[in-house]
């Protein structure tokens, strides 16, 4: 309840005045642009009027819609060469706005629209560089990752090239879960050839991936990113999955992973993620009827340790557990729910619709 910065009254008054002036100036610019839209004035001055608003408030969707209306009217024919200068101006403006708010929905949307509208093939390399630059500043900006994926799609960048990009991102920061996630999308695309050959190829690559995550584990075992990715890797190699290994190979691999995790736990016995991974790997053996009394027992022990180390989730480990039969059935069943939202009545008193009894003004 503490730790709040306090300003002096003078400082506060000055801040308020500055805010008010800024707001007043913004309002008049915004009104000017709205008037031009209402009057359907589609010219360079309207573009300028919009720019003066969005550089203050990039999230004003109406302004970006107006901009697209203006551009459509100013360049009505199909001559994309004539649009190039206009597109360059749009790229400059949206880049400025992304500097103000790198997570603005309408700005990213507009930039994507321009890329298509101007058929800006010449811009593709710039876009890849720009997204790389923004991801260097914030490697978890999912707007930027999504935009990059869309550019990659139209520009026909290969999955191999993007995989190399994620490798550099992960090498720069093992914690970058967004990059790990992207890898899970890219790897199957890199090795998309059909049939047993494709599966075998993917299988070999995924086994290499296990080496990469192993480095992450031993560098920062408390960092959850690579551990989540690890689960995905194992699941892809399991019998019945996309890159299924022969059962005996899969069993050997899971046992080797288990041994690696056990070694890590000798160094870091109190660390949550390797404990969870050991439990998961043990349960995986059970699921595929590859477990022994020893591995099943070890997994149970790991869950017990997990329960102690990660006390917040103790009840989850007890009642739901990791891949226990009960939880596995849930996905297959078909719940039926009242369509109106009245379902909360199911909770009895706790979601009673009677007037709520509030504690009196306690403090």
């Amino acid at each position, binding site marked *: *309840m*503490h*730790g*709040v910065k306090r300003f002096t009254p003078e400082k506060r008054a000055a801040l308020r005045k500055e*805010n008010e002036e800024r707001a007043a100036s*913004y309002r008049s610019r915004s009104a000017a642009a*709205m008037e031009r839209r*209402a009057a359907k004035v589609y010219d360079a001055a309207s573009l300028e009027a919009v720019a003066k608003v969005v550089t*203050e*408030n*990039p*999230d004003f*969707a*109406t302004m970006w*819609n107006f901009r697209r209306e203006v551009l459509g009217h100013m360049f009505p024919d199909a001559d994309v060469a004539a649009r190039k200068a206009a597109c360059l101006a749009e790229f400059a403006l949206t880049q400025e706005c992304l500097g103000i708010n790198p997570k603005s929905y309408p700005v990213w949307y507009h930039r*994507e*629209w321009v*890329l298509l509208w101007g058929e800006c093939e010449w811009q593709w390399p710039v876009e890849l560089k720009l997204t790389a630059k923004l991801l260097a500043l*914030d490697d*978890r900006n*999912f707007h930027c*990752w*999504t935009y990059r994926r*869309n550019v990659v799609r*139209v520009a026909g960048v290969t999955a191999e090239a993007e995989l190399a990009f994620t490798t550099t991102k992960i090498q720069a*920061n093992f*914690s970058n*879960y967004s990059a790990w*996630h992207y890898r899970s999308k890219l790897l199957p695309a890199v090795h998309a050839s059909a049939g047993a050959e494709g599966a075998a190829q993917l299988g070999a690559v995924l086994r290499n991936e296990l080496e990469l995550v192993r480095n992450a584990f031993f560098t*920062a075992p408390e960092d*959850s*990113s690579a551990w989540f990715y690890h689960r*995905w890797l194992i*699941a892809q190699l399991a019998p019945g999955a996309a890159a299924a290994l022969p059962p005996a190979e899969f069993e050997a691999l899971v046992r080797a992973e288990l041994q690696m995790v056990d070694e890590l736990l000798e160094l870091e016995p109190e660390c949550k993620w390797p404990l969870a991974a050991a439990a998961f790997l043990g349960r995986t053996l059970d699921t595929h009827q590859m477990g022994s009394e020893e591995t099943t027992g070890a997994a149970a022990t790991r869950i017990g340790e997990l329960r*102690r180390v990660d*006390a917040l*989730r*103790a*009840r989850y480990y007890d*009642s*739901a557990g990791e891949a226990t039969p009960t*939880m*596995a059935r*849930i*996905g297959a*069943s*078909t*719940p039926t*729910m009242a*369509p109106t*939202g009245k*379902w*909360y009545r*199911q909770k009895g008193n706790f*979601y009673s619709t009677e007037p*709520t*009894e*509030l504690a009196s003004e*306690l*403090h």
Partner: protein
Amino acid sequence: MATFWESTYDDGLPTHSTNEQLKTEDACRAVFEEWINPDGSLSRESVSFCRTEHAAYLKAGLGSLAAGYVSLDASRPWLTYWISHSLELLGPSHALRGDEADNVVGFLRRCQVPGTGGFAGGAHPGQIAHLAPTYAAINTLVTIGTPAALAAIDRASLRVFLRRMKRPDGSFSMHDDGECDVRGVYTALAVASLTNLLDDELRRGAAEWIASCQTYEGGIGATPGEEAHGGYTFCGLASMVLLDRVELLRVPPLTRWLVERQMGVHGGFQGRTNKLVDGCYSFWQGGAFPLLEAALTRTAELPSGGIASLFSTDGLLDYLFVCCQQSNGGLRDKPGRGRDYYHTCYCLSGLAVAAAEPEPDPATAGTRPATSPAHWKTALGFVNPVYNVSAPKVEAALEWSRELPLPPLPSSLMRPQPAPTLA
């Protein structure tokens, strides 16, 4: 104003390293330490709920509808929703009434776009309608709940707007010539459900599209292929509840993904794998648990301890009461950050969800005994987590809209969708 789906000038530190995580944990620990008893336990009884201060801070925010908050210029109905919903949860003596409520209703009426329907982000004529402020406006009007507030909703044009936002693949655009993601489906369905406009065309393909946004980890991303994120996971799951199609999701990994988002050290939630805690996810993640519970209860698969056995409601209450409350009113993302209306709303909403949970059965309570004092558990009214609106107000709105006929769709108002974008 950091929101997961609005302007995000300041959405968390742009870092994600273990160092930032440790710094945040230290900052929380320092705040907790102010409330530690000599025996080392947390003195929860001493931590009051600053009801009066929160109410005063929220009421002051109504004045900023007119000015200030330039960044919110295109999303003022959010402000009315964050404030009215928070005040409603604070109890009858703080809920918006009389002139204050009438002013908000009048303001939202001016945000409504005549003819083509929906609500714009401001009362400035000429602003386009957008699903996000439409959701915020309808939730505000339902929260106020007076006949005048409900009558302010123009269902005929709203239906036109919602149908125009529907896309061939089952998803929804946020506005004419606008982006599309899981927020679109959720806001459209929530609004349609409250106003009894949810027809087969709005339902068409929506559940399948959302299912395609679920990732291998189990959470839901903004669009197919994106990484799982707390805000979108809530929107996707709540949509599935509204559609009665939760079974299309893979529930066990979804459960695990949600369970893993609660942070061990301070009890708050993170929004994504390996991100820092943020008070707003107390609702986006915490509010998903009662939705999950509804699904699990129907199939008799719910663990015996209820959702309190899936996440630590006590841990979340510790984080909200101790780390997020400001003694001068309002709640915040995390220690060291300032309060704002967005975080105040979603911290309080998460608090309402966690406080409403029954104490876990001592037989299954595990190592963490029930700890929250009575004045924490009774601090707020009940929330309907599907809409994040006060439960009795949702009930009243559904009662109001139940008998209303489906308004006709004038074909002249159906403008075609623009060409699809890259995505």
